[in-house]
């Protein structure tokens, strides 16, 4: 497949607007302005583009949920939080061809009649936030953003909003709270952001890669896009491959290639001549697949059939030297660290899982541990929590315990009893208090 989103990667001055314009950049934006919002939304719907942020929700449908008759402002938000372990694709787009994102934001804002858009980028991405700022300035100088864009009467401001170190702000409603200046607590839904979103106004949140697809759909047409991949799983997709492979990196491939092709052909196979043991197909929130499942197709529906998720398309590969209990422990550490702490099952459950797995790794496993883990995960997922972070730690840990239970049992068989607990002697750290308290 000829590269679409990554076509500029490796070219000289690939980020510059001149380079972008030479490659036909901002033609989609001009065309969209001529088409009108409804036609743009229809084109995107027809392309069957599905969200690249994790959930794979049809993008055109999401745009159409914005109430047509809503007075007052609406907002478009570009999700550049890119925090899911194993995911590093949006950064690639921003590094090499960021004008695609700005053009996508412009078209999407126009489609939902939003005059303000925010790009929420994770705090660690200082360099890429700066690149986006520069890109916005360039686009504005060329009249693609700002007041009365290209004489169309449409106004659009785009602002970069930096996060400050919280994975959960990738979740769309936590992200909105974070833009509003609050702790990144996911919101209770309904209402959904398309109706009550940023500052209480209708809001569409789309991933960087999703938005980067949009200009191409508008210039080349929905049929072209839908011709890539397979039905309902259309278009090019960025796969980030990391871990034990010879050529880790971002690969742009049509949806529906097999994980075997991605890992073995594109990423050069498992490194050091070792064998594949398992891999996360779409970030660490997706249930793990084993070497035996490597022929699953890398698209939304095939992954769902295999009881996992394409997620963000971040593939983390483990060779046969890896202890899957340790993987589970690492995963638990991540989510316990990133749980916002609002709701009981996730706050308590993620930490509890981490404690159990730490103990297992320390050589003090108990026979009940695998079942306790499964129980905790069962009651932290499937709607038990406010946001899907509960599922995000529960599903991979469940999959690790069920698919690699023998490894857990081996740890437990070799376990030594927990040394007796020393009661901590705590200094009285409170303020000098009166008698009786």
């Amino acid at each position, binding site marked *: 497949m000829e590269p679409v989103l990554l076509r500029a990667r490796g070219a000289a001055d690939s980020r510059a607007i001149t380079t972008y314009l030479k490659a036909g950049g901002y033609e989609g934006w001009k065309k969209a302005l001529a088409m009108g919002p409804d036609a743009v939304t229809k084109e995107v719907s027809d392309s069957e583009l599905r969200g690249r942020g994790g959930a794979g929700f049809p993008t055109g449908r999401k745009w159409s949920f914005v109430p047509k008759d809503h007075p007052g402002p609406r907002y478009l938000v570009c999700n550049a939080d890119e925090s899911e372990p194993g995911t590093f694709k949006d950064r690639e787009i921003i590094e090499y061809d960021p004008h695609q994102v700005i053009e996508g934001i412009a078209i999407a804002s126009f489609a939902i009649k939003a005059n303000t858009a925010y790009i929420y980028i994770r705090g660690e991405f200082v360099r890429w936030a700066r690149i986006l700022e520069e890109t916005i300035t360039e686009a504005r100088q060329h009249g693609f953003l700002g007041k009365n864009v290209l004489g169309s009467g449409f106004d659009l401001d785009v602002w970069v909003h930096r996060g400050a170190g919280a994975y959960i702000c990738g979740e769309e409603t936590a992200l909105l709270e974070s833009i509003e200046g609050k702790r990144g607590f996911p919101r209770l839904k309904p209402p959904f952001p398309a109706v009550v979103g940023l500052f209480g106004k209708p809001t569409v949140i789309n991933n960087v890669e999703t938005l980067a697809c949009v200009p191409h759909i508008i210039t080349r047409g929905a049929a072209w896009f839908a011709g890539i991949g397979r039905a309902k799983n259309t278009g090019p997709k960025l796969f980030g491959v990391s871990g034990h492979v010879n050529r880790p990196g971002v690969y742009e491939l049509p949806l529906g290639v097999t994980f075997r092709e991605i890992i073995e052909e594109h990423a050069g196979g498992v490194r050091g001549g070792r064998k594949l043991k398992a891999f996360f197909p779409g970030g660490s929130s997706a249930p793990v697949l084993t070497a035996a499942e490597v022929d699953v197709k890398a698209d939304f529906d095939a992954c769902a059939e295999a009881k996992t998720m394409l997620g963000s398309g971040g593939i983390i590969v483990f060779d046969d030297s890896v202890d899957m209990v340790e993987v589970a422990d690492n995963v638990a550490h991540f989510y316990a660290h990133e749980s916002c702490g609002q709701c009981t099952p996730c706050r308590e459950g993620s930490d509890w899982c981490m404690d159990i797995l730490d103990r297992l790794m320390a050589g003090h496993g108990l026979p009940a541990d695998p079942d306790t883990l499964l129980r905790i995960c069962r*009651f932290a997922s499937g709607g038990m929590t406010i946001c899907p972070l509960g599922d995000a730690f529960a599903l991979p840990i469940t999959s690790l315990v069920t698919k690699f239970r023998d490894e857990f049992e081996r740890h437990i068989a070799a376990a030594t009893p927990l040394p007796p607990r020393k009661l901590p002697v705590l200094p009285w750290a409170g303020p000098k208090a009166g008698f009786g*308290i």
Partner: protein
Amino acid sequence: MPKLTIDGHEVEVAAGTNLIEAARAAGVAIPYFCYHPYLAVVGQCRICMVEVAGQPRLALGCATPAADGMVVKVEDSERAREAREAVMEFLLANHPLDCPVCDQAGECLLQDHSMSEQGSKFTTHMAETRRTFPGYERRLIGPHVVQNQNRCIHCSRCIRFTREISETAALTYKSRGNSTFIDTFDGSSFDDPMSGCATDVCPVGALTLRETRFRKRAWKLRSTPSVCPGCSIGCNIFIDHHERVVYRFTPRENPAINATWLCDHGRFLAESLNEQAYLTPQHQGPGHPVPAAWGEALAAVGALLRGAASLRVVASANMSNEELFLARELFGRQLKGEIAVPVAAGEPRRMKNGRGEWLLAKDAHPNAAGARRLGLDTVDGEGLSRFLYGGAGLTLILDPEAHPFLASPEALRLLRVGTTVVWARRSHPVADGATWLLPTPSIASNEGTFTSSTGAVQRFAEAFAAPGTVHRTATGGMSPDCPTIASPWGAPGEARPLWLVLSALARELGTKTLDLASPAEVFTLMARSEKGFAGLVWEALGGLAPQQSFRERQHVG
């Protein structure tokens, strides 16, 4: 009006009612921790999960509005019960379970709910060390509130209270995930003017009150519906008491006035109700007071009234409507005396009602509106000093705490000229110098109505008969630094509520129409003759039964 079925009970509720409230109406209990009827719904604790027919996922009782035709299963759903049990296990996994030394025990939602689930096969799978917050186990975070972060279940009610109700936003979550804890800014003092409410909304023993903790186990307390005597707003309260000692005020729900809130000023008046300086009637002997029996006292005061050349009466906006009415009828209409009701503005106080509107206190008394409605002359300090000036006749002071002016040297000088009869409870210079002194009990041993500044006529009930022994802590306050109450009260004392003494005086003076047996009778008479009270019926001045109002404390006992 959606009609729905909850565990087989049909119920019809107002549109917008959530499933917790709908179930309550249907007699089914959905457990909850983070939900509070006057705070924003956040759906954080996840204990209120129920099954709604036709929905693949469990629904939140707090965040799901009742809809027509809905079929809800609470106890009847195995799935929902399992989910709630799991949430309980999660919550208890890190809970210290120190109920025996926790002051919340007996009125703790966590404890109540784990007790109500006793029948289930509930157990914990926890083998890890419990989370603790060293240094945060018992910390005074403000003038009144003690924090034990280990017990916190992260329901955020206290935070929402300070953001949505008191509007100080003084409490916040800090850190995140399992390390989240509650704190003030940089450890500064939590001096919210309504800080006590944070301990009310806290469902567990994470926030408790310095003044009341460890004074009395919650299940020993009896609650009597009453009205806060602190200002003219008239917040509805329960007087929580045991063996004729008042331990605390807790809010009683009234959407029109105080929702479920109290200000700290009003709340901490509770302890002052225990003061009773004067125990029997007494008259001024040669240089020292001489105790007397009530019969003797009434006869003597009756004689003074009959023989008085002139009569001035200082009434009080702390008196009930019934007492003000009796005083007006007897001393004003019958005996042609002059009556003034001093009113002090006091500190500015405010209270948020159930619609989120601030009510502002006009006066520092609970019944200034009642005095005005009865057509009595209200005066300020200056007016009072003019009123007291130059009278050599008989002066009645029905309540020395009617105005701060009465404690001033000037007032004492003015009063020395004539004869004074004073009704008093707490030690007061005016009372000490009175010709006759008649002891009155606190509002806890009285019964009657106050008219709030918004115009609501509100009843307060008698908690117990007047106490008979002096109780005061060393500093006169309920401070933990002081020795606690030593022993229960003895036999009822001699102090008598003012209305009773006024109707006895009416009998003494032969005014049959005012010789009435209860405040209810006085009220009925007043409602017949007074425009401002027309149509009101004593029994219908409702809201007095505890079970009629939102009250999660006192589930047990």
